[in-house]
């Protein structure tokens, strides 16, 4: 009996010891040129990830941040930004921005204390802005030391995407919003707002420095009402809308992008559509058909003009990314993480 008790005690003690697993670090084959792809993962699963695609070799590496640092990025990897070979990874529902070396993917630091960060815009080497879905301000931080240096109140509105023309930053107020907010980057202050079609989300700047705005029009059944979705062109000097292109009933466009020469916009509306910036009307037919696939996001290579479109498949498995030439010819397709939402070319 005594031996039995001793045996049980020994088993108990051995099992109680906390064995830290041996940490293994993988070398990440990230080329100088290529595409970082932010994969959102699933909301509240904490399974967002980062992929890298080398277009020259047609090679993709997935989960590169986890592989290098043995830790996940977090919940909903929303967007990416690159500054001085530092990769800023916006992890929306983890309330943080993770910073990694853009070549080795080694973890360099983290900006914490946010709530629902969406995008980053760099003003200069010491100043950058963060938009937030659940805050009535933009956050200012210093990319050198990752310290939050200030806030820009936006008067009860929230911020989504940001583009800059000259000293002015144009910010879309997407969630239940109707304005394009104008921030003077010299004084870090909201100076104007431009009323645009309901729920402006995506922004792009063309070769003439005009700001293009994609508004999704809101939701059916919402008390705020539902408008037809629209694409608008805004003059950043006069802060006025020059043209509104209304989409058809039932359209839910997303992913407005501009091509490498700045003369053509692309967007998703189940299929891929393209339109010359000087067109007077929306295209009548799509440029690339989805053929039953769930096109989730779109990007255009700023150098080559190639089009990248992600297919979420069923939203809970590795997604597909299609790479098309600017003619619409398929060049390659490859698998990445779950729900790829943002492409960063370098």
């Amino acid at each position, binding site marked *: 009996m005594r031996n039995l008790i001793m045996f049980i005690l020994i088993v*108990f003690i051995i*099992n*109680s010891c*906390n064995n830290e697993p041996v940490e293994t670090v993988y070398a990440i084959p990230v080329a100088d040129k290529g595409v970082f792809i932010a994969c959102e993962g699933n909301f*509240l*699963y*904490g*399974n967002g*990830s980062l992929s890298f695609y080398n277009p020259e070799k047609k090679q993709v590496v*997935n*989960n590169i941040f*986890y*592989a290098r*640092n*043995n*830790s*996940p990025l*977090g*919940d909903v990897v929303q967007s990416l930004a690159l500054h001085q070979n530092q990769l800023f990874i916006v992890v929306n*529902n*983890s*309330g*943080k921005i993770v910073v990694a070396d853009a070549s080795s993917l080694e973890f360099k630091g*983290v900006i914490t*204390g*946010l*709530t*629902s960060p969406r995008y980053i815009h760099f003003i200069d080497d010491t100043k950058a802005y963060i938009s*937030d*879905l*659940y*805050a*009535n*301000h933009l956050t200012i931080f210093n990319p050198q030391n990752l310290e939050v240096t200030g806030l820009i109140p936006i008067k009860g509105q929230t911020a989504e995407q940001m583009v800059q023309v000259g000293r002015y930053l144009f910010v879309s107020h997407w969630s239940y919003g109707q304005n394009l907010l104008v921030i003077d980057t010299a004084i870090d202050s909201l100076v104007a707002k431009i009323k645009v079609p309901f729920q402006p989300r995506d922004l792009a700047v063309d070769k003439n420095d005009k700001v293009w705005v994609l508004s*999704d029009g809101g*939701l*059916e*059944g*919402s*008390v*705020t009402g539902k408008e037809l979705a629209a694409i608008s062109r805004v003059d950043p000097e006069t802060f006025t809308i020059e043209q509104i292109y209304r989409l058809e009933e*039932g359209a*839910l466009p*997303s992913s407005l992008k501009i091509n490498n020469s700045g003369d053509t916009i692309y967007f998703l*509306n*189940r299929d891929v559509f393209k339109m010359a910036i000087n067109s007077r009307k929306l295209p009548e037919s799509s440029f690339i058909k989805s053929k*039953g*696939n*769930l*096109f*989730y996001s779109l990007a255009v290579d700023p150098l080559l003009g190639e089009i990248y479109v992600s297919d*979420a*498949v*069923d939203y*809970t*498995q*590795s997604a597909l990314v299609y790479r098309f030439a600017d003619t619409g010819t398929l060049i390659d397709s490859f698998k990445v*993480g*779950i*729900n790829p939402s943002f492409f960063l070319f370098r």
Partner: protein
Amino acid sequence: MLTLLLLLYITHTQAQIVTDTVRIGEVKVLAKRKVQEAGLKITRPDSIQRVSMLTSDLSELIGDYSPVFVKSYGRGSEATASFRGAAASHTQVLWNGMNLNSSMRGIIDLSLLPVFFTDDVYLLHGGSSMTRGSGALGGSIHLENIPDWDTRLKLEALGETGSFHSRKSFFKVNAGGRSFQSSTRILYESSDNDFPYYNAGVLPKRSDTLSNADYRKEGILQEFYLRNSNNGISGIRLWYQNTYRNLPQLMSYEGSRREEYQSDRQFRLQYDWKKYSDGLNYHFFTGYSTSRLEYYRATPAFDFVNEDSRSREDGFLNHLRIFRTFDEKTYITFSVDANYFTVKADDLIRGSGYSKNRFETSIMANLHLKPSDRLAFFILIRSENYEGNVVPLIPSAGLEWQFNRNLPLVIRSNAARNYHKPTLNDLYWVPGGIPNLLPENGFTGDVSLEGDFNLGVTNFKSELTGYMSLIDNWILWQPSVSGAYYWEANNVKEVLSKGIEYQFAATVHLNRISFRSGGNFSFTAASNVHAVKSADESRGKQLIYIPKHQGGIYISLGWHKFLMKYDLNGVGKRYTTSNNSETGFEHVLNPYVISRISLEKEINLRNVSLSLKSRIENLFNTDYQSILWRPMPGRSYHLTTAVKFRKK
């Protein structure tokens, strides 16, 4: 593992054949079973299991002592049950026959159902659930309250204190006589739930303490029963419960502190009338069930409230069952249900929401026959109507046969068709509800082999079941197919589920030592067979969060009012991606095995009994995750004291 179990089963059976043939000749297994239960696949946690979990909630009792998988977000957090690979909404929970599932969400949170508020708990698997209601494509859980007519006065008080600043108090008073009984049960439970864990979800990795996970539950269940000389029993039951839970963030969260909570308030009222006679018997109840749910999320530092939603559900449920038993060989039932539900959901931030009601009716006819002590079967047919939609006739049938009079083995089989109506959220939620969703349509069948062996001081019961089910038009919420940023409900999957359930219970009484053991094991292969696109790798792959393997075993030793019990429960690998990706670094939840040990001493002094119990949960401090990136507690210690007074 399965082979081992089968071998054990066969070896045991073969040993038994020889012994029984020599010793007793004819054995009666099916003969002991009530005719109205013949052919049904029932799991009933035994009394020691239920009593040992008296201070816990139903998710722990079901999760540990049945083949049903319980998906839990952690201590005190939402927990739902999945039978045979089906969804949480395919598990129906009935309290004294009254359905408790949310008409809005379809599911029920088992963590809100205290074991202390029940007198009997049993499970009906697959098609067997059709005898009590429809919609349980996986199975149903039944909670019963039973009056104790032999007691004049019974007082019971339990107090538990445990790790992570946890306290539980339970009181029960039964009073009355042979014609009137009153039972009052009260519970109060709270926990800071601030357990330490190793946070591998952030960099640098560190030891952390779970925050904003505290919870509080309080409830009262009052029952009155009146028995008259005409074998009629009337009962009124009132159940009020209030639960407040703060909701913790995922391990990777490093944002500004969030204030996030959920408050659930439920009130249930039931009038129940039963009339027994040699001829027709009647059971009628009418009930009212209301629940309020409040969900709030804010970032106080930013002075920003991003979620503040309220919902109210009211249900009026009515049931009449007329049944008759002929010579314990024939049992006929006819039942009618008429239920009315109203729902109001409001998003106070955005001003959106919906308000809807639904009237549902159901009729059922059921015949059980036991032509001999070795053969029984049942047939059942049910018809349903909701919002003008008539669900086609849904049949169910079962058979039970003791194929050899000298062998204590029974073969049981049943097959059924079943439907599950879309929930009101599926149809009307703004945004994403689709009013023309089809009901989920299922076929299910199972075959069981049950043995009940008595060998001197040993009793060994064992049951092995194989099942298969197909559920078409499976409703799933996923990002809108139109490319919008909101989620919507759709009939997207056809799920084929196949598997095995095994349960055993053994008792040995030797002088003053009583030894008990029980266990269960389930193998579940559930996959989507409706993956159309070529890029979709989910076809034939295991559904997410459904383990293929799950099991538990316990042993208990009783001696001189001492009771020592050891529980071991294991859950197999669970996938979190539909294509079962294992190449990623965070896609698979690893299998885990956790143990519980308890030691109890009871002292009896005439009408009073005292007991003191100490319990260690997660004995070996296993680090595991039940849900991706949600920490689970390590080893914890609990002390329970109980005082009972009973006057007959």
